Every structure is written in C-alpha cells, then in structure tokens.
C-alpha cells in the first residue's frame, strides 16, 4: 500500500468526513491546538532560558525541569491529538504541503536535541544544578531548543496560508 493510498483512506474515513461535514468542529480543534502550542512553548521556554543561564524562579535547574516538564508533556500530548485530528480532516493536502513537512522535520530535530541533552548534560546535572553559567552542552541544548520551537510555530502558521484546502 503506497503512502498516497494510506492518505486517501484517512481522508475517506468516517472521522475525517465527520470533521469536514461539521463546520464548527475544525475551528474548535484548531483553537485547542493553538492553546496547546502556547503552553508547550511557554513552559519549555522557561527551561531553555534557565539552561542558557538566565535565572529562573528557583535556583535548581533539575528541580525546575522536573516541575515544568509534566506541563510541557501534557500540553504536547494535547497538541499531538488535536494536530492529528486536523491532519485527518485533510490528510493528502497536509502531507503534500511543504510547510507541514518542514514543521514535522523541525519537531523531529527538537526531539533529537532533547534526547542528546538528556544523554549528555542532564546526566551530570548534579554537578551544575545551581551553577551559573551552566556548561556549554546545556547552553547549546537550550538555545537550539528555543530556535527550533520558534521555527515550529513560524512554519506552523505558514501552513494555514499555503494549504490547498479540500473542503
């Protein structure tokens, strides 16, 4: 089964049809998607700035990460669920949209950046937990994350201006 047939069968699914046939549904899902995105960025930014060495509301970087990450993940899950529903409504159009593809790639890069951080600087966090400035690896992870999430939001907004809407 080719990618295009998979996309077409998503497009023909009952869920996809339901979203397209009820004009109020898509805007509601999209508005929730934006709420989720702002919470993801708003919380991850506080952590990223701390990794860069900007003082946060507490001294310990480890404690800050531990108390904020559940919010980031919760909001991210909401963003993925709502994003998947938006995709389902117009699967082939999104899949063929350059900005959408770019957004997925940039999110993948943000994920890789996070994994690298957890495998390197975060392993030694006990050493630099309340030290300023944090080590280069942590600062690098922080600035990379900030740039990538800004890019995710920017190309994400562009999707709305470039998508071939099918309904």
């Amino acid at each position, binding site marked *: 089964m080719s990618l295009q047939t998979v996309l077409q069968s998503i497009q023909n699914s009952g869920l996809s049809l339901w979203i397209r046939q009820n004009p109020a549904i898509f805007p509601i899902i999209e508005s929730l998607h*934006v709420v989720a995105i702002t919470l993801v960025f708003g919380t991850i930014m506080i952590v990223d700035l701390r990794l860069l060495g900007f003082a946060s509301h507490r001294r310990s970087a480890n404690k800050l990460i531990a108390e904020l990450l559940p919010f980031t993940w919760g909001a991210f899950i909401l963003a993925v669920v709502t994003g998947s529903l938006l995709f389902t409504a117009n699967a082939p159009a999104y899949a063929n949209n350059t900005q959408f593809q770019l957004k997925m790639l940039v999110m993948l890069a943000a994920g890789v950046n996070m994994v690298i951080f957890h495998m390197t600087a975060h392993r030694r966090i006990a050493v630099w937990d309340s030290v300023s400035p944090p080590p280069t690896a942590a600062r690098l992870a922080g600035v990379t994350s900030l740039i990538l999430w800004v890019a995710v*939001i920017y190309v994400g907004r562009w999707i709305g201006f470039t998508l071939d809407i099918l309904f």
Partner: protein
Amino acid sequence: MSVQAFGQWLYTTPAAAAIRETVWVIPTVQAIHILSIAVLVGSALVSNLRLAGVFAADEAPTTIIRRYLPWMWCALAVLLLTGLLLIVAEPGRTLNNAVFWTKMALVLFAFVLTLVFQKPLLNRQSADNGPDRSTMTKSAAWLSLGLWLAVIFCGRFIAYT
C-alpha cells in the same frame, strides 16, 4: 463614524494595503503574536498555579511574581503592537467580529485581575510569606488562568467567524 465605516476606511489606507500585499507580513506578525501569547501564558501558568497553592510551594509567591510579571508586561506590549498591525491590515475580520470583542473584554478582565492580585506582591519582602493565601486569591488565580486560555482560544476562533 460607525465601527463598520471606520473599518472600511482603514481597509483603504496605504498602510493596510502594504501589510496585506506583502505576502510574508501577516504570517510573520501572526507568528510573533502567537509566540508572545505563549510567553505570557507560560508566565501566567507558573504565577497563577503558585498563587493557587499547587506549584512550587517552597518558593515565596513574591519571588515568582517578580520573575514573571515583567515578562507578562513585555509580552502584552508586543501583543498589542502586533495585534494592532493585524487589525489595520484586516479591519473587517476583527472590528465587526463578536469573538474579537469578547477576546478584548477577556484580556481586560485578566489584566485587571493581574494588577489587583499580583502587582501588590512585588513590594512585599520575600521572607514575608505568611499564611495569607486567601480563598479569594486562589479563586482569582484559577480564574486568571482560565481567562488566558479562553483568550487564546478566541484568538484563533476569530478567523472563523
């Protein structure tokens, strides 16, 4: 001059045309608007959850408000500026839109709550962290957070009404 007439006049101004006709301007301004509301809501989340008593209980509320209230003011300034540009570019989309005015009322309400319940904490000694977190403050904190989320929801919903 009615709001509608004003909107129609605004639409015809050279400034409005310039913003509309340069393809990257509106998406870029909207993206900056979203980033700013994200900064604001991140700050509002941490501050209000602290005031509600469910977050960072070992840190004084004053420490947290001092850290995040200036961010909220900066974000608000950028939001008003970018928002104004978006109104100038597409007045018809906003000025005649009930969701837009609902959003403005919610923004105003949320900022009045912030001024009343957060700003006075700036002048307090950090050590003065007495058990005075009244039910009133906690309710206001939850309400503020709900208001900001509603503001963001309305913001996107404007495009569809």
